[in-house]
Structure formats: C-alpha cells, structure tokens
C-alpha cells in the first residue's frame, strides 16, 4: 500500500497544531507509528460511485428508524454487489 510517508517534522507540526503538549521523549515514538495511520487511510480509499454513502444515516424526522435502516441496507447491498462485479471486469 503506497503512502505519502510523513516526516517526523510533519508529525510534530500536526501535534503542535492540535495543541497537544507531547513530552519530547514521546514525539519520535508517535512519529514512528504514523505509518500505521497512513496505511490504514490508504486502505479506506477505493473505487466507488460518487454517491456511495457512509454507514451513518440520519433518518428524516418521523421516519421509523427500522424502515430507513432496512431500505438503506437493501440499497447498499445491491450497490456493493454491482460495484464488485465492475471491479472484476
């Protein structure tokens, strides 16, 4: 999985921008673990339809939640199966 490869300076800058007062001893250890995040972030990204929805839904007020969930699940299952076939082509 190809990643950007954050440098230690970039990691430290991100920590500082977030306002975290990380002890000096721990900064290189966090930086050394940054590749895990990059690898996972890369793994999340794949060819998807523009309209592919995330898992969290917000049913319209008054809509029974179960109905909304079931409808979404059916729709998503259909879409995912279709996208799997497309990738195999």
């Amino acid at each position: 999985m190809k990643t950007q490869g954050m440098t230690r300076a970039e990691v430290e800058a991100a920590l500082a921008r977030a306002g975290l007062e990380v002890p000096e001893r721990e900064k290189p250890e966090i930086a050394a673990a940054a590749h895990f995040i990059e690898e996972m972030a890369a793994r999340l990204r794949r060819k998807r339809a523009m309209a592919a929805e995330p898992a969290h839904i917000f049913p319209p007020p008054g809509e029974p939640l179960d109905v909304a969930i079931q409808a979404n699940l059916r729709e998503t299952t259909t879409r995912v199966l279709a996208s799997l076939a497309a990738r195999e082509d």
Partner: protein
Amino acid sequence: MVPDFLTIAEAGALIARRELSPVELVQSRLTRIERLDGKLHSFIRVLGDEALAAARSAEAEIIAGRSRGPLHGIPIGLKDIYETKGVPTTGHSKVMIDHVPLRDATVVQRFSEAGAIVLGKLATHEFAFGGPSFDLPWPPARNPWDTTRFTGGSSSGTGAAVAAGLVLGGTGSDTGGSIRGPAAYCGLAGLKPSYGRISRAGILPLAFSLDHAGPMAWNAEDCGIMLQAMAGYDPADPASGDHPVPDYRASLSGEVKGLRIGLIRHFYETDNPANEATRRGIAAAVKVFEELGCSVRELRVSPLADWAACGIMIMLAEGYAIHEATLRERFSDYGEAFRDRMALAVLTTGADYVQAMRLRRELVAEFATAMVDLDLVITAAAASEAPIFDSVGKFAILERPSLTMPFNVTGTPAMSVCCGYTTDGLPLAFQLASKPFDEATVLKAAHAYERATPWRSIRPRLPLT
C-alpha cells in the same frame, strides 16, 4: 463452606433452594478478594459494606418468597466505566479520578432490579483504550492463569476477577474487542451483543458507533443470564434497538443439529496468523460442531486489514472528538499508552473518517450477504494465548489487524469461547458470530460446545505464587 468457584447458574440454583445464603456468598468473595487481589489488581474499588448490606436485603427478600430471578444475590463487578450513583467512576484515569456520578448507568439500574450484588469497580485500560499501563493511579490487572501475563484489554479487571472467582460475572465494554480479548486470555466466555442490544447510557464512551456493553462470565449460560438482565430498549441511548428480548436461557437446549457455520480461516491463517496451538484448538472445535450435527464450510470475506483499518479510523476519530479538549489541557494527566495512541488521531482527516464510514457500509453489506445461508461464523478470538506483559507494546493494536474488530464494524453479536489450554495451562479461544440481534444462536452454540468439551471444568490454580 462456599466453594472457591461457582457459576452464576449454580449459585442461583443453590440460593433458590436456600442452600446458599447471599450473605455467605458475598462474604466468601470479599474474603477471596482480600486474599488474592493484592496480586491480581482486578479491583480498583471494593464496595464491601454496601455489598453486604445489599446481600442482607436480598436474603430477606428471598426468604420472604420474593425472589427476583437467577441473579438475585449474585456478586458481580462493574468495569469502571459504568457509572454508579455516589461511587466514583474513573475510567481508571487520573483525568476523572474525582468523578462521582449522580445516577447509575441504565445497565447498573437493571442489575439492581434483578437483585445482583455489586462488589466493586473493576480495572480497565484507561477509558477502555490505553493499556496495559503502569503510570495510572492504579496498576493494571494481572492474569490469574499466570500473573506475568497480560489479561487482554480493555475489560482487564473483569477478565481477571471472573477467572479468579472473585466475582461470578462482570461487565465489559467492547469497541474493538475489549470483551472478547480479555475473555480469550483469561479463559472466560465473553459476549459482545449486537450494537443497540444493551444500553450504553451512563457508560463512559470510547467511540460512539463502535461501543458495545456486554457480559463476561465463566460460561455461555452465565452470559445468557446476565444478558437477560442487561438487554432491552432504552430511550436514553439514541442507538438503542427496540427489538424483543428472547428468553436466552430457554435457547440453551443443547440441540444445534442443522446449524450452518461459516469458517473464516483466512483471518487467522494468513491475515493475522495465529499460533499452532490456537489453530489446533479451532480445528478441534470445528470437529466438535460437526459431530454435534452442524455443517461447516469455509467462508472468505474482505481481508482482516480492511476491517481493522475501518474500525480503528472510526475509533480514533470518535475517541479524539470526546477527549480533544482534555488532551489539549491535561495531556500528561493521561497515561502514556492512551495519550500517544490517541494523539495519532491528529494525523487523520475528516475525509478519512467519512471514507471509513463508506467502507463500513460496504463491509456491513458484505457480511449480511455472506450470512444469507449461514447461522454462525467461527474464527479466532486471539492469535495466541496471553502474552507476557513486557511484550505488549504501546502501539500493539496497530501492529497486527484485530481479529475481533470485524464484528464491531458490523455491530453483530460475537462471543469468545474457551477451546482448551496450552501445554503451560494457558487458555485458548475461538470466536462465534451471528446475525444482528441473534445472540440466542451464539449462546446456544457456545453452550453446546462447552457441554461437549471438558474445558469448563478447569479453573486457574490459586492461591497465586
């Protein structure tokens, strides 16, 4: 003389027949805690006086013919993220060391209504995430099977206390495996029910969309008894599911003939290779299920790393949102394991979170499709027996993809089941999972397996040396 080890079902039956007094039972556990917990560190707060008072009340009610059911008079422990009215609930952290809740968590109320006796608050990884840690106000819990070994986490104190017989059952929470991991390493049964089955109201959150509350006990029957009290709709939890709660104990018929099981072998053979003892244990468990009349076929799903990436990204984003302000103000008041792991969240983006949620929808649909002609899946619960403490690194959860995270991503029931012991006597485990809100089938299969094998008759050798 109260036996050192009793299951909830055994103790409940003795109490119902008035052959065991709740007061004697609670006193015997308090004595045991006094004798053993100096080395196990499973409790961070023992509520001895309160427990004895509750036991006396339970005894009086039972004698008066007002039994509340199989948990009446049963001593349990609560992971210290379950809020308890008037009793500190700290998340095992300096950050919340003075937090005294004004009310009980919904689950704590339900245990109280069922007559269970809370013996105290149990150790956890800090806020159910960072550990094992030696820089917190309390030491980490130790594994009763070998105190040089890790309990697993984050429900570490519950794992240790139940395995050592200090309580008969306890509560855990599971965001990426925090019930099933300690259950596996400590030789217990640990059930992560469906997302929405048990209220999260009054439980300190780690990641809203992945957090599950659940029972940890010696066997599946005891988990079923606890789940019966814990489960059910709660309007105080926006994720609570309004589904009927079946009679879990009634489902433990022992009859599993005809169940269709998918074996996800690639999770523990290639994606996160388990050691030989674990693989042998799972292979033997598959044979047991086949002999019981189940059909088992191999099932392939997305690689474990996909499920882990999805779950961990969500966990970091949601967890960081909860702790962001406090991390800015009091970074060094958190333990190193928690703060450094959580600090990695600043390297993620909003888009990462949404991409994880898009992947989650796909993985949920994939699992639902795979389960259309299956009742259960079986896979590893852990890649090995409990490791020694020193080998568990600060970023261990990132080094190998979690075997338990897939069922947090799907929100479906999953349970750790003990499947034997290493030659050194350390517990091994597999995992059973099922369809949404079908905890009954998981419990039924686990119970049948436990009855067909000798593993539930073996307890850790105590007192500790």
